[in-house]
């Protein structure tokens, strides 16, 4: 004979187990709903592709020691610094191609960063946006081009080839962003005496003096 109190205890425990099972089922459903809601708010939208714009590259040629203007359509970001880096990356990609008239290994990855600073003192304004005030668009800027050490190490040694690389970078920057009037170079973030034993990298280059008329010698 089962005692009465044991029967009551069994019924109470059974009822409690049933209630707890229901609560757990509900909690599981809620967690599932939260998960689905979280997936809906995830950034599933594809990144916006920058619109293609016309860019002018001053492409060097070793055969006649000239810079030749070449216009290409490139997707360019809005930020000035990133835009300068993208244009220079394309220029160095041309030099890294097998049929280049000015062969230099490395390609776009050789440009680590491009910083834009006011050309005449003042505070640094890296990455000035296209929505900046109009006066900042006309303020002369100094571009600091940080090259990778691998690029400098792999650059062919010679007066002509090094000079053409430096001048084509300066001229390309000025052709696409005319407010860049001065250019300085760093290699792995440090100043370096020469690019590959010849062209001086310690001086500030005046970009306005490096832009030649089409096909002429720098």
């Amino acid at each position, binding site marked *: 004979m089962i005692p009465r109190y044991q029967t009551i205890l069994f019924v109470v425990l059974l009822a409690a187990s049933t209630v707890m099972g229901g609560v757990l089922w509900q909690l599981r459903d809620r967690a599932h709903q939260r998960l689905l809601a979280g997936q809906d708010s995830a950034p599933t939208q594809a990144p916006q592709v920058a619109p293609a714009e016309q860019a002018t590259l001053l492409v060097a040629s070793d055969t006649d020691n000239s810079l030749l203007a070449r216009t290409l359509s490139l997707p360019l970001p809005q930020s000035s610094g990133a835009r300068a880096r993208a244009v220079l990356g394309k220029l160095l990609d041309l030099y890294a191609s097998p049929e280049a008239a000015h062969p230099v290994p490395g390609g776009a990855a050789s440009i680590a960063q491009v910083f834009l600073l006011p050309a005449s003192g003042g505070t640094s304004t890296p990455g000035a946006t296209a929505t900046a005030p109009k006066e900042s668009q006309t303020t002369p800027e100094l571009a600091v081009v940080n090259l990778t050490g691998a690029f400098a190490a792999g650059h062919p040694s010679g007066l002509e080839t090094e000079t053409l690389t430096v001048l084509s970078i300066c001229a390309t920057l000025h052709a696409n962003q005319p407010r860049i009037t001065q250019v300085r170079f760093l290699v792995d973030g440090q100043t370096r005496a020469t690019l590959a034993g010849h062209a*001086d990298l310690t*001086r500030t*280059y005046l970009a306005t003096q490096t832009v030649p008329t089409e096909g002429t010698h720098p």
Partner: protein
Amino acid sequence: MRWTKRLMEHDGRLTFQASALKRVGRPSCICLVAALGVFIPVLAQAPAAPSARFVVVLDAAHGGDDAGGRINTQGGDQAGHSEAEKALTLALSVRLRSLLAARGIAVVTTRETDASVALDRRAEIANRANAQACLSLHVSQSGSGIHLYASSLPPAEPVRFAAWKTAQAAYVTRSIALAGVLNSALLHAGMTVTLGRTALPAVDSMACPAVALEVAPEWGSNHTQTVTLDDPAYQARVAEAVAAALLQWRAEVHQP
């Protein structure tokens, strides 16, 4: 001290500067010396007054630890033979010195052996020589023919105290004229010549008409080297043309 030695070795104007320094106290003297340090080496000559003795400075680039570029030599394209730029520049310097000496031109060289010579030291040697022509000799595998470069510094009026890093600015106009004379002689010798402006540390500190001359191989129409840089005949042709140009330049310098 190095500056003191430099003062004592120079001409009358510098001796005057040295004696003036003796009259100031020691702390002031040190400050004055520090301020003058970057100017004194280029004070040796007045830009517009060439001396009666015609002197040419030959600066064979690189040397010692600084080998310069690697240059393909005979059969280099096929067999991978190459030579350091420093050896070829020295060979050209030696050959050119002999030719100029045979023509009665005084020559000062920045190096005669495979030795390291700092860029500032090269300019210092040139500035002490009171030269009428300074040639920085380079060799490159890139490009074709002879590349002549004058300093890209903007021309400036001659000043008594010139900054070390831009001393060449007062001579840029004459350097371009010297490049023109070299260009004519090299073209006359049947070589391909390109002219340009560049920023070359040693040349920018030279207080003399200065040109960087880079010799590159000659290429045929089918992108093969017709002449390699270790070809003695090619070296002799370049040296003969440069020597002829310097004779022409001497005549122009000594014109009344």
